[in-house]
Structures are given as structure tokens and as C-alpha cells.
């Protein structure tokens, strides 16, 4: 046996072999493909200004949108609470998709059940499915709370979760005391971030109301000193760790409301446990007595913030994802203001080190034209980071950017941020647009770098622009979510990612004489 024959080639190289190239050519006679000329012309046309105009004029078809649906966010939100089982009321395929999608991003299991509604439930309603589902899931997976969200099917037929859960109690499937939180999350409204918000609000209001506690902000020796913190639809488990580090440096007590980092960063110990970490259920009503609440995704957490400031009567400090030096400064100032504690020297020192790193790298970043894609709060953070390094945001696409916070619209805030810097003068913010729009933008007005999720890789490749993977979902790179991108440390991580991509590009595109040793 020759060595060559035992050489095992997989799809990365196998199909480049001549015999497969021939196969590909031969198959075309049955495909009735367009001619090479037609394809080349269509490709060129798709890159033209004329095409771009048509692309931006389309009214109804959506091509490669950068958003998922509400209940996916709700599942992630439910996993932020201790021993809580996400429970999806509707057709079971949705649940299978949420579990796959989240698992592909985090490379971790996503425990979640469905009521498996079929045709009969479409006609008669899904109450029996919900009651049986509660009985089975509580027996099998022994959660301490079930958190129910709906799919579009349950919403279209108008299933009433509150009365169904009540009937489950009457039937004795679950006890009167057993906690079942819920929210309505039709997929034809909002996106994954609104669904996240709906479930967080659902859980907070449910646990608070049933506790009988009356909120007294800042009261109580123990609980009153605490700060509440919400990270929102957070695809980075590393961001939770970074925030804990910052809060520990402040030496403040705090409760993270919705902490899925345990579930999405659990150890391999030889036993699977279903539930890892999460906000303790008994901490939720106590959180109503905290001094104030810090939100790190103000657009995402709109309704939860309204609930906390309204019902809990608490001071809210609502930011967007704290990226970059100034973003982190704002975060520390907000913590300081809410708690009355000074900014710790250790963090100021860390700031200095990261500023030093930015100085070292700035020549490679300055003037780099960047395209950005993501959820609204992430984009606000990214825009800020780019501007403070001398990078120039050019194209900004936010498929789910049609949200406001306290009458501040995402688009307006993004544009104001850009207008305040000379590096933002070329930027355009596209709300409600998709990645096919972004493709036209990249092809017609080129940039040096694209920053966004794995879904942006297709448009970036067509435009031959390197992609820095940031956001959700990241399917095609490993462990990115384990490294924080918030705080000073996160800023350093993001900086390293970007500057080293640029340096790699310099090496890849060298002309021989400038394949340099020192950069």
C-alpha cells in the first residue's frame, strides 16, 4: 500500500482532486446551468451601483437578516436563573432550533423543553399539551422553576398561558406554590433581544409579585446595599466574569439579574447536571430593595428597565455594552454613582495599561475604514470603541435597530455619537436592513475591516474584507465567547483581535521586500 493511498483527505482537499473537478464539470450537462458568461455578468451586475440601488429599493423580501426570533432570547433569559427549565409553548421544531442555535454558538448544551403542539392543538388549543408538559418536565428534569415562552403558533391561535398554568395547578400537576414564570413572545414581533427582555421582565415581576415583598429601594441593612446588574442578551460568558471582577474591585454587593454564564460555561466533570449557576430565585424579590439597577443593554432591556424603575421604584443607570476605554469609564462612573463608592485604584491602573496598549497599536488602526453589524447595544459600544482608536466606522447595519429607550432611538444615538467625532463623518446607519444590503455597501464603497457575527462572513468574503468576529452568533470560531470584550480587559482583547488581524494582512499582502520582522 503506497503512502499516498492511505493519505486521508477530507472535504477541505478531497474535492480539489482532478477526478472530482471532472465530475463537477460532467455534472453540469444535467444541471442546465447558466453559461459562464451569464454567471460572470450577473456577478458583476450584483456588485454594481445600479444593483445596489435596486437592492435598497426592495420593500418586502428580506435577505440574510441579522436577527433571530423572540423565543430564542427567552430561552437564553430563562437559563439565567438557578435551576430554571426553559419551556417553549408551541410547535416542537422551534425548540429544537433554539437548542441547536444556542449550542452552536456556546458549544454547550441547551436544556429546554417544548409542548410539542401539532394539528389538533392548532384546532383545540394547546392547554392539554401545556399541562402534560409541565407534569413530564418537572418529573424528569426536576427544575425549581419553569419559565414558559410562546412561539408564533401559540400566539396566532391565542393560547392563554395564565389560565392554562392555573388549570395545571387545579389539576394538581404542579402545586399551588410551584413557580412558573411566563411571557408572550410571538416571533412576528421584535427579535431575539425583545424576547430576552420579555422573559427577564416576566421572571422578575412574577417572583417579586408572589413573594409579597414591597420594594423599598435602598432599605434593609443587607439587601439595600446591593446593586442589581443586568447584562442582557449576552453572547459572551467572559463578559459576566469581567463584570464580576470589576464589581469585586469596587467591593460592592450585587445581584446579577439573569446570569446564564454558568449554564454556558460549565465544566466537564464526568457528570452532566442540567443546571449550572444562574441568579438565585430568592435573590430576585430581594433585588427590589437594592439601591439601584445597572443595565448594560439599554435597548435590549427596555421593558425590564421600565418595570424596575416603575414598580420597584429604583434608580436605573442604563448603558449600552461597555466597550472601549470611554465605554468602560462610563460603566465605572455609573457603578460609583449608584453605590456611592469611589472608582478603585486597581481599575484606574488597569485602564492605564490598556491605554498604553492602544497607543502601541494605534498606527495600525488609525483611519481604518470599518463596517459594523450587530444588535443595537453592541453597535453603540463598537462605534464608541472605533472612534476612540481612530478607526472610521463607515457602514453600520442593524436589522433589529428599530427600538428606542426613553424615547431615545438607537439610530439617533448612533448618529449623534458619530457626528461628535471627526472619525465618524463618513458613517451611515442602516436600521431594519439586512446583510444583503451590507453586501452592496461593502462592494460599492469598500472598507478595510468588517466587524460582526459569523453570518457576515459571506458578504465579507464577496467583498474580500477580513472579518473580526464579534457578537452573536459566532459559529465558525472557537472560544471567542470565553474572552470578555467589555471593560478594560475586554478592550484589550478586542484590540488584540483587530490589530493582529491587520498585522496578519500586512504579512499576507507583502511585496517581498516588506515582509518585516518587527511591527
Amino acid at each position, binding site marked *: *500500500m503506497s503512502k499516498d*493511498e*492511505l493519505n*486521508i*483527505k*477530507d472535504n477541505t482537499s478531497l*474535492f480539489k482532486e482532478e477526478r472530482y473537478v471532472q*465530475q*463537477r464539470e460532467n*455534472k453540469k450537462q*444535467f444541471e442546465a*446551468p447558466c453559461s459562464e458568461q451569464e*454567471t460572470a455578468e*450577473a456577478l458583476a451586475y*450584483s456588485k454594481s451601483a445600479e444593483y445596489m440601488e*435596486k437592492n435598497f429599493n*426592495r*420593500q*418586502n*423580501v*428580506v*435577505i*440574510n*437578516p441579522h436577527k*433571530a*426570533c423572540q423565543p430564542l432570547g427567552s430561552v437564553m433569559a430563562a437559563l439565567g436563573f438557578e435551576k430554571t427549565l426553559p419551556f417553549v409553548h408551541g*410547535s*416542537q*421544531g*422551534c425548540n429544537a*432550533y*433554539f*437548542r441547536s442555535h444556542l449550542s452552536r454558538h456556546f458549544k454547550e*448544551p441547551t436544556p429546554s*423543553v*417544548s409542548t*410539542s*403542539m401539532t*394539528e389538533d392543538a*392548532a384546532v383545540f388549543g394547546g392547554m392539554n*399539551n401545556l399541562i*402534560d408538559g*409541565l*407534569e*413530564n418536565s418537572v418529573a*424528569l*428534569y426536576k427544575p425549581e422553576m419553569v419559565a414558559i415562552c410562546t412561539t*408564533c*403558533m401559540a400566539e*396566532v391561535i391565542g393560547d392563554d398561558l395564565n389560565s392554562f398554568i392555573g388549570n395545571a395547578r387545579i389539576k394538581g400537576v404542579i402545586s399551588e406554590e410551584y413557580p412558573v414564570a411566563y411571557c408572550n413572545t*410571538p*416571533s*412576528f414581533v421584535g427579535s431575539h433581544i425583545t424576547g430576552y427582555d420579555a422573559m427577564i421582565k416576566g421572571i422578575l415581576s412574577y417572583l417579586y409579585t408572589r413573594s409579597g415583598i414591597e420594594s423599598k429601594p435602598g432599605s434593609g441593612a443587607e439587601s439595600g446595599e446591593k446593586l442589581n446588574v443586568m447584562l442582557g442578551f449576552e453572547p459572551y460568558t467572559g463578559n459576566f466574569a469581567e463584570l464580576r471582577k470589576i464589581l469585586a474591585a469596587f467591593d460592592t454587593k450585587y445581584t446579577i439579574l439573569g446570569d446564564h454564564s454558568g449554564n454556558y460555561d*460549565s465544566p*466537564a*466533570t*464526568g*457528570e*452532566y447536571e442540567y443546571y449550572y449557576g444562574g441568579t438565585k430565585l430568592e435573590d430576585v424579590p430581594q433585588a427590589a430593595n437594592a439601591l439601584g439597577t445597572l443595565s448594560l443593554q439599554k435597548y435590549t432591556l427596555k421593558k425590564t428597565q421600565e418595570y424596575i424603575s416603575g414598580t420597584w421604584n429604583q434608580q436605573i443607570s442604563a448603558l449600552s455594552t461597555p466597550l472601549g476605554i470611554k465605554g468602560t469609564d462610563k460603566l465605572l462612573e455609573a457603578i460609583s454613582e449608584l453605590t456611592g463608592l469611589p472608582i478603585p485604584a486597581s481599575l484606574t491602573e488597569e485602564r492605564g495599561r490598556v491605554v498604553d496598549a492602544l497607543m502601541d497599536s494605534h498606527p495600525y488602526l488609525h483611519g481604518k475604514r470599518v463596517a459594523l453589524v450587530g444588535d443595537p447595544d453592541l453597535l453603540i459600544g463598537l462605534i464608541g470603541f472605533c472612534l476612540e482608536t481612530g478607526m472610521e466606522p463607515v457602514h453600520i447595519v442593524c436589522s433589529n435597530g428599530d427600538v428606542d429607550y426613553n424615547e431615545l432611538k438607537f439610530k439617533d444615538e448612533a448618529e449623534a455619537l458619530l457626528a461628535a467625532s471627526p472619525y465618524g463623518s463618513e458613517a451611515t446607519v442602516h436600521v431594519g436592513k439586512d446583510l444583503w444590503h451590507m453586501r452592496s455597501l461593502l462592494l460599492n464603497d469598500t472598507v478595510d475591516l468588517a466587524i460582526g457575527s459569523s453570518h457576515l462572513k459571506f458578504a465579507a468574503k464577496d467583498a474580500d474584507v477580513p472579518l473580526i468576529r464579534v457578537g452573536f452568533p459566532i*459559529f465558525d470560531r472557537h472560544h471567542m465567547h470565553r474572552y470578555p470584550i467589555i471593560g478594560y480587559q475586554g478592550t484589550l482583547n478586542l484590540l488584540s483581535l483587530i490589530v493582529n488581524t491587520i498585522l496578519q494582512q500586512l504579512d499576507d499582502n507583502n511585496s517581498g521586500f516588506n515582509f518585516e520582522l518587527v511591527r
Partner: protein
Amino acid sequence: MGLNIEDNKKLIEEVLEAYPKKAKKDREKHFQVATDNAIDCGTCAVKSNIKSRPGVMTPRGCAYAGSKGVVWGPIKDMVHISHGPVGCGQYSWGSRRNFANGTLGIDNFTAMQITSDFQETDIVFGGDKKLAVIMREITEMFPLAKGISVQSECPVGLIGDDIEAVSKKMSKELDMPIVPVRCEGFRGVSQSLGHHIANDAIRDFVMGRAELAETGPYDVNIIGDYNIGGDAWASRILLEEMGLRVIAQWSGDGSLNELEVAHKAKLNLIHCHRSMNYMVDHMEKAYGIPWLEYNFFGPTKTYESLRAIAALFDTTIQENCEKMIAKYKPVMDAIINKYRPRLENKTVMLMIGGLRSRHTIGAYEDLGMDIVASGYEFAHKDDYEKMLPMLEEGTIIMDDPTAYELEELTRKMNIDLVGSGVKEKYVYHKMGVPFRQMHSWDYSGPYHGFDGFKVFAKDMDMTVNSPVWDLVTRKEKMEPEEASI
């Protein structure tokens, strides 16, 4: 625990104890332990293709996943509209790894998410008008698209939109095939009905609509190969080397024209019988095309299948077949000689879609591995009946097993390798049990044919024998120490 009938029956009983009465009674019907008697007569008592219990973490998906995700999605030169809210199309976007040649967004639309992105107003007023505009816009955005399919999501069926009427009208206006597919997720009990609905739509809207310039005696179709990681290419190359002419490949790397000319073939070769048996049955009745189920996983089954295929043709093909087997056998033997000693007697548990739990058994056996439990997500009775004779006495057969059942069985049966999907994968990583995603080849492949078996053998060895599993600190090893403190 291994292949002892009584032990395994008891084991199943123990596992099912955790269920409430009603669910337990249902779940009992979905298990069987293979006995000699059952294996000989091929009667499978396992209940299948019936509803999953609510609240049990079923691995199953929905009809939309079966139609858009599996059957229609890989037809590369058509645009498939995920008609309804944004989610379904988003989650099925490029995640099944069915490779296709062509330029994405120009003459290949497979790894794209094209959706009507329903909003509340569409639910209230209906999405019909919008759908017609979307179709026009698709022809503007994608001038080389050969056709359009409408993949209905749940709300479309519930609000009663007439996608058939819109498709018919627009098909005339745009002068291209437009196929309405009623694959709403709530229909049926799993992906399986979606396959059926998708097949019916192919039958009704595209089958027999084009002719081949010339036909020949060796014209065959590959049916039910989705080209995961390039599987269909690694299969096709063998059929062509044998002298057959593959005129259509369904649906991995498939094209509209191949769907339309397939009725001219002399023989249908079907790999995934579960998802496309409806098609070969129809083509047999309507066009008199005989069909043969084949299996290109592992050399033993591949030789068997190649010979069975050749037997339906003349001596030229038969001689070519033997020549080809003689050519590849030494390579396959060398692969087995290399990997079998590392994998001999390792126990395997499989829980895959509707075919591979059966079709991959031979490939594992070629490597000396023992299947001790095997089940499907969405198979039907005939799939179980075909699987039964391939199993050893004492093997556990399970239908639509829940996450809980799989985990308990893995714990109690001392499994060396679990083969299932991404929802299961990371659970077994926590448990320290070697795992391969057998829906998607875990981002590897191909696994079909001779080129594919090399990759399969290498991947199984890599997985089972990776030193990383030894790094997992198992609790049972920890506890005595803790107790002694």
C-alpha cells in the same frame, strides 16, 4: 452492561421509572430489546411516527425542517422563501452542511436566508400580497434564479393564506416554476411529514417537466443524498467509475433541471429511503422506474450495494464493478487494518434521524465496533423492521428517545461512543463520553463511499481514542476521597 436481553429489559424499565404514569406508558411502547426471534422474523414492536410527549426534550424537529432544511433547501439554483416570521429560516441557514457548487447569491442560493419576515400586520391582514411582491423582488435581486419555492412556517397555515393561488399567478407572471410547500411546523409529529410534503410538491410541480437530449441504458438517479460534507460526490464518483451515468442528484448539490429530467432514468438509487421513498414509489408507478435502496457507509455495505446495483445491468457494468472493488479493496483493507485494532469491541450508541442509525451499522462493524443501542428521531415502522436484522441479540432499539433516556442509558451501559446531533453533543462532553455529530459529520466528511470511509474511520478513531477524555475527572473517582476526609 452489554448485550444481555434480560439485563437490558430491566435497564429500560429502570430508566422509565422516572416518568409520570401516562408518559411512562407511552414511552414503554417506544423501546424494544432485540431477541433472536425478533431478528429472524424482522417484526419490530417499537411504536414509531407518533406524537412526542410534551415536556420531554425530544430530539425531533418539525415539518418545515424536513422540507426546507432537508429536501428543498439544497436545490441550489432555486430561491427558497422561508415564508413567515424570521426565526425558522435563520436557524436553518447553512447549518446542515449540504455542499453545492456555484456562486452563492448568483446561481447558488443554498446557504442563504431569504424570508418574508412576517410582522404583526401580516398576521392580521395576511401575507398574500406581500408574497407576490417578494417573488418579483427575488427575480430582480437574483436574475439567474431558475425557480422559487415557498416554505410555509406555522402562522401561514393558521391564518389561512392561499400560497397556492399566489404561486400559480406569479408563476405565470414571472415565467418560472413557483412551488408552494405546505410544510408548517405544526403538521405531523416530526420532520418526517415535511419530507413527504416536500416530495409531493416535487411530484406535483416539477417532475417530468423537462427532457434529456439523449437517454442511455445506464442512466440512473441518486435519490436521497443531501451531500453532507460532500457525500453525494463521493458516491457519484463510484457509480460513474462503474460506467453508469448519473443524470440527477437529489437533492444535495441538486438543480431544478435534474428534478425535471429524473423521470428519464432507468433506475432510481435511493440512499435515504426514509426521506425520499415517496418519490421512488411514485416514479415506479408513474414512469415504471425500478428502484434500489443502497448503502455506501463502510466497505462491506458498499461492496454489497455496488454488486446489487451492477446486477441490475449488463456484464460490462458487472465487470467494471468487480474491477473497481478489486482496485479499492486493498485500500479499504489497509484502512481497516490500521484502525480496527484501536476500535475493536468499543460500544456504540446511535440516535440519528431516520436512516443513518441503520445505514452506519455496517461501517462501525467494519471497524470492529459493537452497536449496543440504536434509535431514530423520526423513523417509521419499515425503518425499524429493516434495522432489526442488522442488530445483535440484546441490542436496545429506541424510538424518539428523550434526552433523559439517552443520558441514563449512556451512564448505565458504559458506552464508548455516542453518535447523535448538536443538541446532544455537549451533554456527552460534560459526561466525558466520546461523541460524534452524525447528522452533520461534525464539520468533517464526506463519509459515503470509499473516499468517505477513510474519513469516517479516521474520525471515529480520533474521537474514541482522543487523550482529552482521560483528562475528565470523573466524580466516582472523587467521591471516596471526599468521604475519607
